[in-house]
């Protein structure tokens, strides 16, 4: 009974393994078509180098071939990966495709591969062996899914820049995913060779690569069962058609393509999306005693120590000075507010401080790291964490998973231990989960932990970004317009949160247009205009500073700015009538309703 279907079942397993080699990179958002090349290299080198089954026995021969093939595949992917890892999207796909085609043509012109005739290989693989190999591969990706490593890959897929800012070494992770893909492709190549008896370079051509990609995407590239489902679908459709008696040569490919189209159009996320994805929340009851016991604790600089020193920092974009000649020192425990009209260079300045933008002049040291020479993830490792002016969340991950990624730096790697089911990895994962849940609760998003980040309201997305930044236990927290899109009640809560974070020993630098909130929250305010610091001091000094008033209101003749700020905000947030409004209930209220000093950019233009 089973024997009758042995060929089909074997091909399902082989197809699934090949699809996993695509899945391995798709999960990190990379589109590679080089796997056929890896498989080809692996198949031919293993088939020619591995000892014959007559000498060492069939199974050992296959095992040796598998090890050889996976090593060749991994090696080839390193060789291809190192120069191409900076390519993105379609560019990577085409570069790797070019590699695969070059491999095919080179092998076709070699003596030892038998050229177009192909190379005879003994059939050793049985259906059982194929499924065992598939099980091992699937197990690998299953255990990877909820490890720190797996989450980091997903974060890179969703938003590379944000992943970097969370301390993830994107280059290394992408290369690791690529090498995994190469090894799995190598495995496929060898197994395929030891099943079909005769391999030719043409077996691993563009069509084969596309087939593998189709299988992986069809099955679903965000869930570890996807490739298996995809392969089952792709292999079974022709079989079923044959069984039903569909004969004409063109109908079969037509129906198969039609089904593929229907699945891809109507099942976003592939076949695997039919399987519900469990959302997990930590049990809040368990083990309050050993809270965070397994998380790395960061030592914040003691109050008064220097956190950041900026000396003559400047940034020029094609002759336009976005920021020029900034000297600034931020000390531990300070809450520094950065205000200024639109286009004053505030975001450029924090982009430089957080390492995203290299300065064009001057220098700066942040938490011991030198700006401009330190990669973003290293700077994050030093204790800098930030939010973005335009939310850069990991959209397809849940709120909780977003924060878990934020905890990348303070949690421990769990993937290899998860493969072995070590209890310590379970403890570490739980610690990371509890830590993430605490961060979520702190910003008031505990109830929305299971929701996709993209489904949250604007204000909640801002809060989620803060929670994610908090999860890395930063020493210096940079917030870029955190209150944008929040109403005055929410802004007041945010202000209280910032104050309490400062009490925990964090140093905070934040950009905000809600001047009232800045004056209320900060210990020091820095005012930027046209890329230069025009004032710096305590909120009281700033509110009375004529230069600031001029920058905001154009002339000194107007009513003093202090009055309007006090009126607009100091009253509002503290009058807690609506304090108990549900979080995110009023999110469509424009920033002007939150007491923002609204039209600064028009006034600044008038001033020129």
């Amino acid at each position, binding site marked *: 009974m089973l024997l009758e279907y042995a060929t089909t079942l074997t091909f399902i397993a082989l197809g699934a393994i090949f699809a996993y080699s695509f899945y391995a990179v*798709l999960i990190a958002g990379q*589109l590679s078509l080089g796997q056929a090349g890896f498989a080809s290299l692996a198949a031919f080198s293993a088939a020619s180098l591995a000892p014959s089954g007559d000498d060492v026995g069939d199974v050992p021969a296959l095992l040796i071939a598998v090890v050889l093939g996976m090593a060749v595949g991994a090696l080839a992917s390193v060789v291809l990966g190192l*120069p*191409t890892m*900076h*390519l993105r*999207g*379609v*560019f990577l796909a*085409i*570069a790797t*495709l*070019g*590699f695969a*085609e*070059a491999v095919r*043509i*080179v092998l*076709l*012109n070699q003596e030892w591969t038998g050229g177009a005739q192909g190379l005879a290989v003994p059939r050793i693989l049985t259906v059982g062996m194929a499924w065992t190999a598939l099980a091992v591969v699937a197990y690998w990706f299953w255990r990877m899914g909820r490890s720190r490593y797996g989450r980091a890959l997903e974060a890179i897929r969703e938003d590379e*820049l944000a992943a970097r800012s969370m301390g993830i070494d994107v280059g290394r992770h992408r290369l690791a995913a690529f090498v995994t893909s190469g090894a799995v492709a190598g495995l496929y190549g060898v197994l395929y060779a030891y099943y079909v008896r005769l391999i030719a370079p043409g077996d691993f051509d*563009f*069509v084969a690569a*596309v087939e593998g*990609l*189709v299988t992986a*995407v*069809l099955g679903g*590239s965000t869930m570890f069962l996807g490739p298996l489902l995809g392969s089952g679908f792709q292999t079974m459709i022709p079989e079923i058609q044959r069984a039903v008696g569909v004969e*004409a*040569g*063109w*109908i*079969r*490919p*037509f129906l*198969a*393509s*039609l089904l*593929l*189209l229907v699945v*891809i*159009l109507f099942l*976003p*996320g592939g076949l695997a999306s039919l399987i519900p994805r469990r959302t997990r929340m930590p049990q809040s009851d368990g083990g309050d005693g050993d809270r965070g016991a397994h998380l790395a604790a960061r030592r914040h600089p003691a109050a008064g120590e220097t956190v950041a020193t900026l000396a003559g920092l400047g940034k020029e974009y094609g002759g336009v000075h976005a920021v020029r000649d900034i000297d600034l020192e931020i000390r531990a425990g300070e809450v520094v507010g950065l205000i200024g009209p639109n286009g004053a260079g505030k*975001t450029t300045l924090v*982009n430089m401080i957080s390492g*995203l*933008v290299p300065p064009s002049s001057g220098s700066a040291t942040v938490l011991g790291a030198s700006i401009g020479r330190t990669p973003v993830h290293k700077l994050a490792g030093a204790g800098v964490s930030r939010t*973005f*002016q335009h939310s850069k969340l990991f*959209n*397809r991950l849940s709120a909780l998973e977003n924060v878990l990624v934020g905890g990348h730096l303070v949690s421990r790697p769990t993937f290899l231990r998860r493969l072995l089911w070590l209890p310590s990895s379970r403890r570490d994962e739980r610690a990371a989960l509890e830590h993430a849940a605490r961060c979520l609760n702190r910003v008031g998003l505990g109830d929305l932990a299971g929701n996709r980040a*993209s489904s949250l309201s604007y204000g909640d997305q801002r809060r989620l970004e803060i929670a994610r930044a908090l999860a890395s236990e930063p020493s210096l927290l940079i917030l870029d317009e955190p209150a944008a899109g929040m109403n005055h009640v929410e802004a007041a809560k945010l202000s209280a949160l910032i104050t309490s974070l400062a009490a925990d020993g964090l140093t905070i630098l934040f950009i905000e247009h809600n001047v009232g909130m800045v004056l209320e929250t900060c210990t020091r305010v820095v005012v930027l205009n046209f890329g230069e610091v025009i004032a710096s001091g305590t909120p009281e000094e700033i509110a009375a500073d004529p230069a600031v008033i001029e920058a905001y209101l154009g002339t000194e003749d107007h009513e003093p700015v202090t009055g309007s700020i006090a009126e607009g905000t100091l009253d509002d947030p503290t009058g807690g009538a609506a304090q108990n409004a549900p979080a995110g209930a009023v999110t469509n209220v424009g920033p002007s309703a939150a007491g923002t000093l609204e039209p600064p950019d028009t006034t600044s233009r008038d001033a020129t």
Partner: protein
Amino acid sequence: MQQLLNGIFIGSIYALFAIGFTLVFGILDRLNLAHPAVFAASAFVGIELVERGGLSLWAALPIVFVFGAVLGLLIERLAFRPLKGRADAHFAGLISSIALAGMVIALLQWRYGPDTRRFPAGSFPDTRYEVAGAQVTLVQVVILGVSLALMVGLTYMVTRTRLGRGMRAVAENPDAARVLGVNVDRITAVTFAISSALGAVAGVLFAINVNTAQLGMGSAIELKGLAVIIVGGMGSLPGALIGGLALGLAEVFAVQYIGSSWRDVIAFGLLFLILLLRPQGLLGARKVREV
């Protein structure tokens, strides 16, 4: 000299095919992998028009152009529009266009069978010219002329007309274009139509050039098209022209001096080198990612 001219003729077809490819990518940021199927389908349709309809080669070209445009509208409607707004639209678009291509090829197999087809004998004028000691047929001259005319026309349209301005606006930022009153859906559909029409003409010209049409001819040129648009610069129309001609010439000379079995290594070697040294391509602009 003969090789040089041959390279230019075949290169102009590559360029025409690649321009259709790169147009959709440059404006809509989508790779349409059904493009090669259009290429193959139009070759078969072109042969049928000449064989059954009794049209001359040149009368068939405009009909095929329209046929390609209609096919392009279908591709957009069936494979790309339903994906709008999906997070995985990029990957899904690749797959859905592959699926649609599979359906088109299956239909071709149904209509024309799996065999190679040729134009009926005597459909080619046998006028020949001698240019600097090399033989050139009228057919080849027309191929070059039609390709160049279409590419010039396209460039004019994109840079000078209202429609072209809309296309460039969509390429920059679809949302902003929509807000400013550009009918993004219509621009998208028209872009697909034009792209496919060019691919269709390239298909017929290719069939005329080698006097064969096969079901697999699309996948053979697909890789070359991808190489051309990378070498020329993704989304760059002049880049695709230069890349196409360069590939045609490189192939012809590779066959002559290195041997035919190594021909494609040249293309991919070139492709690889460009990607490493200048990922934006010869004439592409590097997109700056914003924070």
